[in-house]
């Protein structure tokens, strides 16, 4: 585990969501299967550097995604493409916050990607260190984060794979 990297997730997410007035609280020991399943979004973005590579995932229900993106727009999101766009930007902002907090590592961000589907789960990676967190915002909806960090040239392929049932 890298406490510097994993400790950056919460303040970075708070800062990202705070840009459009959404405050969150971290939930300790959440039941991770209690909210997802019907229609979810996963936003994923890579952070790459000389000393570490990492991937940040955000998993939210469609309802939570729409609420977050409505806060960004100041109006309801009118379609899934806009919701995906907004979620990707949240991942970008949060990853940017992590990067800023790890300045000496000189990380670079990839472009965010977003998938939508039923019963999405974030698969683990045996060679990656990872940390999962859940944050609740005012309406009671939640955003799950998973940050995975890999030593260079050890984990080559599928740590960012999401196991999806009926992904769209």
């Amino acid at each position, binding site marked *: 585990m890298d406490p510097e990297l994993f400790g950056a997730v919460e303040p970075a997410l708070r*800062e*990202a969501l*705070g*840009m*459009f007035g959404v405050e969150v609280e971290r939930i300790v020991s959440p039941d991770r299967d209690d909210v997802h399943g019907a229609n979810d979004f996963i936003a994923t973005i890579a952070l790459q550097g000389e000393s570490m590579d990492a991937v940040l995932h955000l998993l939210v229900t469609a309802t939570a995604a729409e609420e977050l*993106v409505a806060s*960004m*727009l*100041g109006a309801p999101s009118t379609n899934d493409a*806009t919701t995906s*766009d*907004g979620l*990707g*930007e949240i991942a*970008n*902002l949060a*990853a*940017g*916050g992590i*990067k*800023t907090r790890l*300045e000496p590592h*000189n990380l*670079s*961000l*990839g*472009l965010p990607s977003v998938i939508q589907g039923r019963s999405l789960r974030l698969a683990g990676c045996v060679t990656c260190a990872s940390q999962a967190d859940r944050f609740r915002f005012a309406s009671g909806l939640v955003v799950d984060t998973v940050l995975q960090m890999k030593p260079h040239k050890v984990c080559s392929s599928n740590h960012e794979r999401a196991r999806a049932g009926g992904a769209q």
Partner: protein
Amino acid sequence: MKILIVDDSAVMRNMIKRALASGGVQAEILEAGDGQLALAQVPNDPDLILCDWNMPNMDGLTFVRELRKLGSTTPVLMVTTETHFSKQTEAKNAGANGFVAKPFTPDQLASQIKEVVPA
């Protein structure tokens, strides 16, 4: 003032527009989804360009280089998560005039604009 906002996220372009209004910056807004599309907007003579760094097709750094090759002196503020000193130096060497780090507040955006566009 005419401001060209260059970002591949339409939601972020919308947020920047709202931040400009909240920060008291009154402007006619032009938009482009990447550097290539932004170059096509240059003949519309923006007074300021707010440009993301990481974009598909043509990224912000390449856009700034191409813009300067065209002889444009329009101020460019990079609005980006790429805030490392080495990145700032790289962008300034390419011709960018300043940085606004994402996430930002409307006041921070307005303040940076005042730095590069005289009232």
